């Protein structure tokens, strides 16, 4: 057994007070470290979108479009942006389970008793979501280029940035849900699944809403994903000045602002 002593205790070092932004950075890098070291989760998260692209995409040929359907090439311009948003949705909406695990083990509690600003703990975790989702989106775009998908060199990066903003909001909401149902863990998945599929279907990312009933079109107006999906299609096609792009940004930013506000508030209230 070691008999080493600990020299120069930090009590004599006068630790520096950290800024909120540096707290956010610390939390974000802590969350990213396992993802970077073991990118299995990023790769695993690509299986589902690739299955949709491979098995669902071909079914859309001839059935999507206002004038009797799209060609096999044009269908990717419609469907790949959808899949990018879907990947963002699935990836970030489940991320609360990571926090749930840290609440079960005690790691979350440990951080709550440190000088780390509590809001930074939520914001840092949420900002981390941008990295894996953008990495996945880039891979998906690259995979689809040989199949005829066209990514506008200006619109595509803007589209990825919009996805990142959306992901921060969805991730925050997922964390908020995990904290809110911390005493009934099963509720996390029950709520997540219940909310996920209506959002998915009403966004029109899998099938066009134009042929749906009127009530669905009305309901879809309240689904932020719908506006982001339409914006992504416009951006990847190079239609940068489309009103859909502005609407998409508005929806993504609103989701992020609301998500972060709800997330931070839920975290702060969890210790009352």
């Amino acid at each position, binding site marked *: 057994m*070691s008999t080493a002593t600990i020299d120069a205790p930090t009590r004599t070092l006068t630790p*520096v007070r*950290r800024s909120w932004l540096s707290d956010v950075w610390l939390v974000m890098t802590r969350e990213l470290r396992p993802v970077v070291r073991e990118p299995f989760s990023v790769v695993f998260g690509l299986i589902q979108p690739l299955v949709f692209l491979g098995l669902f995409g071909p079914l859309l040929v001839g059935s999507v479009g206002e004038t009797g359907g799209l060609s096999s090439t044009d269908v990717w311009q419609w469907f790949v942006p959808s899949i990018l948003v879907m990947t963002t949705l699935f990836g970030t909406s489940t991320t609360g389970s990571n926090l749930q695990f840290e609440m079960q083990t005690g790691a979350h*509690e440990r951080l709550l008793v440190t*000088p780390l600003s509590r809001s930074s703990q939520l914001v840092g975790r949420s900002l981390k979501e941008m990295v894996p989702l953008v990495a996945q989106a880039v891979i998906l775009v690259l995979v689809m280029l040989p199949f005829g998908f066209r990514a506008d060199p200006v619109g595509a990066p803007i589209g990825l940035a919009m996805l990142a903003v959306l992901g921060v909001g969805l991730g925050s909401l997922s964390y908020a849900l995990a904290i809110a149902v911390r005493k009934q863990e099963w509720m996390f998945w029950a709520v997540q699944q219940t909310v996920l599929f209506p959002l998915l279907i009403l966004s029109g990312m899998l099938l066009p809403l134009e042929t749906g009933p009127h009530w669905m079109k009305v309901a879809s107006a309240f689904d932020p994903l719908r506006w982001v999906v339409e914006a992504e299609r416009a951006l990847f096609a190079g239609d940068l000045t489309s009103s859909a792009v502005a609407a998409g940004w508005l929806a993504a930013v609103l989701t992020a602002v609301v998500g972060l506000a709800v997330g931070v508030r839920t975290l702060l209230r969890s210790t*009352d």
Partner: protein
Amino acid sequence: MIQTRGLTKDFVVSSSETVHAVRGIDLDIAPGELVAVLGPNGAGKSTTMRMLTTLVRPTSGSATVAGVDVVADPAAVRRNIGYVGQGNGAGHQQRAGDELTLQGRVYGLDRAAAQRRTAELLDALDLTALARRKVSDLSGGQRRRLDVALGLVHAPRLLFLDEPTTGLDPHNRANLWEHISRLRTEHDMTIVLTTHYLDEADTMAERVVVVDHGQIIADDTADGLKRTLAGDRVVLTVAVGGTASRVASIVEALPGARDVTIAGDRVEARVADAGAAVPELVLAASGAGAPLLEALAVRPTLDDVFLALTGRSLRDGADTTTTEEAAA
């Protein structure tokens, strides 16, 4: 170092049910003390610690920790304390060394200082070889030592340990306490410990605060509690059947003897000084024609103290999760 007055925590479970987890605790802990807060699960000891560490807000009353009010300036409290919770503080997907370095950065150390501190703590707690290991790959004892290291990164003046050895085998418990005791001496720390291991409170703590139903019901050294609240016991087994009642009469005649009970061939009683009483009783029993097969002098345990205080054994409730704990 710690002062609470009327510290209270209620948990509203539903519109018709409120759990009174902590009911007006007054507690003073001086710098350098090692205090064990003892009680069964659900007694309110963890909730008390969670209020002192700013994990939950008190419903009423006041608490000052390291000179800072826990409600008025919780962030300042957090800068001044170390905390080792019941669970594993290190993220399971993280590497042991990374978590320690991050903890140092969190407390304001620059990267180089945090890495130096990490190396010191890993060495002091026999974890150096595991620095690059994922926390999920560590054994229970290794994780617990890592938790203690995380609580000590900033060399706090005050360390809270919430059931630090729960789930560890006796060897690992002893090992962990050896580390904690040494580090405490080196850093002159005040330690507040919650536990439901009686032997741990008995041997490690210089002062024992017994909590039950959210209130402090006793506060003294372990020896003081045992001396004043429980007393020694003698356990006598008669060699000849049917003579137990005769031996009981002899015991009852002993000055200060009380609670004399007979169970078959066994006679038990509380006495002032069991060590002095046993030889006297052996001789007296033999002289009265009721020789003893066995005569034991039993020093009281903290469980005897708890039994004397509440009429219940601490061991009875050791593994019972109560509504209070679930609400917390």
